[in-house]
């Protein structure tokens, strides 16, 4: 039986955040050995209506990260849609 021991904090910004604040936080429960790809799949399952702009990146603990990056309990996973600062 799969053991869900990894709880990550997910940050959503801009057009991906619920409501009008541009900033939303939620928690995901993930199985042991979870990766960024797994967190993305779980978020899609929980929020099927969420639109992902092309070129959306993911950051783990404030560092841009690839899909295979492993996740650990209490990591912060930020979904970064295309940036537009300046």
């Amino acid at each position, binding site marked *: 039986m799969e053991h869900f021991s990894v709880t990550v904090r997910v940050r959503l910004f*801009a057009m991906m955040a619920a409501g009008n604040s*541009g900033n939303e936080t939620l928690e995901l429960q993930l199985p042991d050995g979870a990766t960024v790809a797994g967190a993305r799949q779980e978020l899609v399952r929980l929020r099927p209506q969420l639109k992902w*702009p*092309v070129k959306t990146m993911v950051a783990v603990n404030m560092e841009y990260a690839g899909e295979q990056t492993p996740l650990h309990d209490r990591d912060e996973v*930020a979904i*970064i849609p295309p*940036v537009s*600062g300046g």
Partner: protein
Amino acid sequence: MTEPPDIQFFQQALDPAAAVARVTGPQAGGIVTFLGITRAETDPRQGVLVALDYTAYEEMALAELRKLAEAAAVRWPVRGLVIWHRLGTVAVGQPSVMIAVSCPHRGEAFDCCEFVIDELKKLAPIWKKEIYENNARWQAERESPIG
């Protein structure tokens, strides 16, 4: 870098004179500044642009900009560096971002300033929402298809 870089977000108006003062010093033979301003625009459907509304993943943006300042200091003899960015509502005609760089010579300062604003726009997790008189939209909704 002679002085540590001054990297901040502001909810209030940016003060360009204060940024220049921050990087002025006896080793600073050339100071280059860049100000990014909310530009007037008219959209056929949305009407006139009133303001931009900025939001950021602040902790990560500050970390990215600190890394950017370190990279700049490796490439140029930076004596002082200011990277200030607005959050919240920035009306048309008002500055949203301010870069000030001082180096011994002007060529270095011009190149470094351009590098800093270009990389900020690529890497820093900051987003602008365009507030038109008839509507508001996040900029990426216009620039890239939603998939």
